[in-house]
Every structure is written in C-alpha cells, then in structure tokens.
C-alpha cells in the first residue's frame, strides 16, 4: 500500500484553461512573456520538452512544454504547466505601423495552462504510516479551508488566469482583458 492510497488531498489541481489562435503572431514574444511572467512571480521555470516536426508541406509543428515551480511555504508549492503546440507554422514578413518590417509566424497556436497546489513537497510526512495518517488528517480537517480557499484560489486567479489573460493580450485577441486584476492583494 502506497501513502497516496490513504492520504487525503495530497495535491489540488486547477481547471485547465486553453487558448486557440489562428493568424499571425510573434512566437518569440509568447516565449518571452511566459518566461518573464514566471520570473516576476518568483517561479523557477524549466522547459521539459521542445519538439519540432515537419509532418507535411503546410508548415512546422512545434511543441513546448514548460513546468514552473514555486515553493511558497515549507508545506506547499505551486506547480504550473504550460503546454504550447503550433500547427501549420511558417514565417511571414509583416510591415508594422511605423513602416518597419518584422518577421513573425503564421499558423495555428494551441496553449494549455493548468496548475497544482502540492502539499508536503519534500515528503517529510510520508516517512512512516503514522506521519502519513497525520498528514491526511491535517489536510482533510485542519487546513482544508485555507488549502482550497486561499492557496488554490491564489494559484488559480493570480497565476494561471493572469497568465492566460496576459497571453491573450500579447496575441491581441478580441477577448483580451483580465476582469480579476483587482483581486485582493497588491501583487
């Protein structure tokens, strides 16, 4: 029997959010926006996969998977996964408003974002069955409100949804804008 079989709520995932975009966009800007966002929010960003395929004559398929981690407190950490895939991607040259030319990408873009609140990330409370049960009790009864009402909420609204809104803004989508920008707190 593994500890995960009886520990309640060892982690709490957020809902995945998606962006699908078809048109002209700046891929470099998308990467930089993601990296910069996580740097500002004190996350450590890791690129777990970068794959390039050319399955047909219509353009390249690039897949990027990023994992960002932030150890918020001793007991819990936030993990955010960003998966990007492009389809039919090819370079185009566009003329900007000031008349300068710039290379951008044209094709389809698919982005998936989701986060997880993970408790006891150093597995200190899984060294014995007694400690594991204690952790289970702690998660289920003592910190449950804080866990699902504060830690999860902050991850979802301040990190995942905010990055979602930021990417929409960079892609200049019609639905850009973040309604929860004044969500409690100043950061």
């Amino acid at each position, binding site marked *: 029997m593994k500890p995960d079989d009886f520990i309640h709520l060892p982690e709490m995932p957020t809902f995945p*959010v998606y*962006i699908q*975009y078809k*048109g*002209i966009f700046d891929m470099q800007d998308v990467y930089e926006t993601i990296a910069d966002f996580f740097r500002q929010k004190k996350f450590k960003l890791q690129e777990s996969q970068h794959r390039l395929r050319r399955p047909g004559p219509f353009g390249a398929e690039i897949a990027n998977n990023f994992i960002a981690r932030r150890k918020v407190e001793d007991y819990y950490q936030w993990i955010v996964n960003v998966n990007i895939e492009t389809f039919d991607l090819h370079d185009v040259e566009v003329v900007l408003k000031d008349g300068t030319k710039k290379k951008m990408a044209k094709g389809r873009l698919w982005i998936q974002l989701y986060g997880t609140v993970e408790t006891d990330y150093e597995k200190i409370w899984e060294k014995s069955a007694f400690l594991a049960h204690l952790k289970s009790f702690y998660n289920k009864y003592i910190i449950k409100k804080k866990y699902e009402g504060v830690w999860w909420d902050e991850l979802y609204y301040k990190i995942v949804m905010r990055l979602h809104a930021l990417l929409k803004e960079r*892609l200049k989508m*019609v*639905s850009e804008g973040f309604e929860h920008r004044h969500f409690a707190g100043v950061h």
Partner: protein
Amino acid sequence: MGHLKIVVDHEKIDYSGPVSVGDLLRMIENFLWERGFDKKQDKDFEQNTANGKFIEWQIMPWKKISDYLRYHIKVRVLGYDIVKADTVSNGKKTKIDTGRLIIVIDGFMEYDYDHRWEEKPILYFFRALYDNFIFKAYTERFEHMLVHDVNHLVDHIEKFLNLYRRYSVISRAAP
C-alpha cells in the same frame, strides 16, 4: 460529477451589429464574479478568417450554495465575421467591433457535488427521496434563485447590446 439538473436550457441571444466584444465578455465575467461565482474558462478560441474574426468563448462559473448543492452557469459566445469599424461615440471617432454574435446561456444545479450519496444504491435512493420530497421546497427555491440570476444576466446583456431602450421585467428574487 453529482446529479446535474438543467434548470435553464439554452437561453439564446442573436445579435448583429456594432459591439465592443471585449467589453461584453468582461461585463459577463464581472456580473458573475459580483454574484459570488468562481470562474472556469472552458474555451477561448479565435481564428482570423477572410471575412473577419471568428471567436468561440465559453465559461462555466460555479457557486457553492451549501455543502450539498452548487450552481453552474454556462455562457457560450460565438462571434462571426468580426471586423473593426469606425463609429462616432460622444462626438469622438472611435473604432468598434462589428459582426454577428450568438450567446447561449444554460443554468445547471448540481446536487451532491462531493459524491457522498452515490456510493451505494440505497444512498442514491435516499438522495432522490430527499431532493424530491423532503427538501422539495428548498430545492425549488434554489431553482428560482438560479433562474433569477440567469434572467438578470440576460437582461444585462440585452441592455449592453442596446436591444431595447425601456425597462423590462426580470424574474422576482426568491424570498
């Protein structure tokens, strides 16, 4: 997912004309946020086509009413051939989106969202008894509240789209 009951089925708004799509979407989000709903974004798609932009935007916010029951309101916005057009607003020239919008709203009530009453057939049976007979008055009242919220949202959207310039009757708030 616990027992999901459709309370509002496909309330639909079809609109063609000038509209600020970004403001409309933010207004919907804000409306639901103010009423205590948590946001869940299902779809946010945009395609640049030859005739303009096509968008598909769907949210399904939820709100826990008790430890047994929660509301879901699904709002789906489809936009066809959205292009920017010049308009005059308050004497100033501005650009605004123009196109066709289809907005579909559904309201759901989810019973027993923690799945505590569906582990055994006997519990499932008791849950049905509880919902339909013992708790009936409360269940109906919760339904009225959800219908009221959805009607209020539809009224807000219609006002935003300027579909009528008069006061309209919205459903009465549950006591």
